[in-house]
């Protein structure tokens, strides 16, 4: 059986609301991915270490606490400085429109807010796989320009 991707779903910072993250974890598992859920209140350092040790291809960050524009760019930087440029980062939760650009500039390739259909997320990941197969920039430290919208 073909394994799709190894994906880490993480909750950065002091944010305990993880119902959304758990739902996403299940959706991705049912789409055939291997999903590692980190649990709540992880630091950028811990998340980076988990990505390295688990040899994950993608990272989904769930944030509902309002700290996204500090923590998410920090995690992206850590991934780049740990030589994980090819890892795909996407985000979800409560992230207001006017903060999106900061995250996209850090290397986040998709932001999924409330009301997103589960198909949309799995379609995004299929597109990511396609792009990777065709060696097109998709990772957090690769050429910006493409993002899911």
């Amino acid at each position, binding site marked *: 059986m073909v*394994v*799709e991707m190894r994906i880490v779903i993480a909750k950065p910072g002091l944010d305990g609301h993880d119902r959304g993250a758990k739902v996403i974890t299940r959706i991705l*598992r049912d789409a055939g991915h291997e999903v590692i859920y980190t649990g709540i209140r992880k630091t950028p350092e811990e998340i980076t270490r*988990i990505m390295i040790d*688990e040899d994950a291809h993608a990272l989904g960050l769930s944030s509902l606490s309002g700290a996204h524009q500090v923590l998410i760019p920090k995690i992206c930087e850590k991934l780049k400085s740990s030589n994980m440029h090819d890892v795909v980062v996407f985000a979800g939760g409560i992230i207001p429109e006017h903060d999106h650009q900061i995250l996209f500039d850090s290397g986040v390739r998709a932001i999924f807010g409330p009301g997103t259909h589960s198909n949309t997320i799995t379609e995004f990941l299929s597109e990511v796989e396609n792009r*990777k197969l065709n060696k097109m920039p998709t990772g957090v430290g*690769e050429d910006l320009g493409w993002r899911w919208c």
Partner: protein
Amino acid sequence: MALVLIEDSELLESALRGDRRSLGKLISRIELGFNPGLKKSKTWTLGVTGPPGVGKSTLIGSMISEWVRRGERVAVLAVDPSSPKSGGALLGDRMRMQGSDSSDSVYVRSIATRNHPGGLSYFIDPMIDVLAAAGWSKIIIETVGSGQSQTRIAAFTDRILLVEGPDRGDIIQAEKAGIIELADIIAINKSDIPSAKETFDSIIYSLDMSKSSNVDVHLVSALNGDGIISLIASIEKCHNYEDENFIRLKERLLSFWDSRLLSYPDLNDLLEQLNTGTITLDEASDMVCKGLLEEEI
């Protein structure tokens, strides 16, 4: 940035030098069938098994903390089943292991069974060898103790800890599954719940009835740390008795045999013939044995 494919040997070399990213990638390649063919070095391995929900991961978490305090480097392979339907897997063991994400002395890797025919038997040994060669002094393999191919993975370790919990009411089931026979040490977790003592007593009682009195039984609480130190002492002093080694080797052999059988190329044909009643089970197993032999030549 172009995708650079690093050579297996280069990856192995840098993983053994202590680069965690390379170690992570190397384990992924082993999962896909790569065998680095390392010389068997001295390893220290512990299998942790038991029913779902008894607190295996949490207990491993408290043991990790203690071992790290003593200067050990602990690696955990946490095995979880893949969904037979989607092929996906939900790997949540590491979130229960306290402190597993923040120490240089701890490496936790989640592994999905990926519906490999016959389980993970082909991969677990090379993974252990790589971890040992990379300097991990304690290697723990966690598996859910349900289903034989899962339990058998534990037989690839040198010592087996069976974790049980209170209010499960089916200690007899564990006996039936033969897990108790494989275990060197039994820990009844959640001693903070009063009924854990009952489980403890009933295990002691059932062990008294059988001859396998070499087994140490501990009442522990991963939650508040009670009994962890003496559990570790028991694990550390545990050594293999000859007859237990034979049981373990038998499990390993059975596990390999399952893998061979399930990867038999004409298996579906065989099942079809069995279904229509044109051959008997006896004839089918003869055909498999002959077929596998021919494959060798």
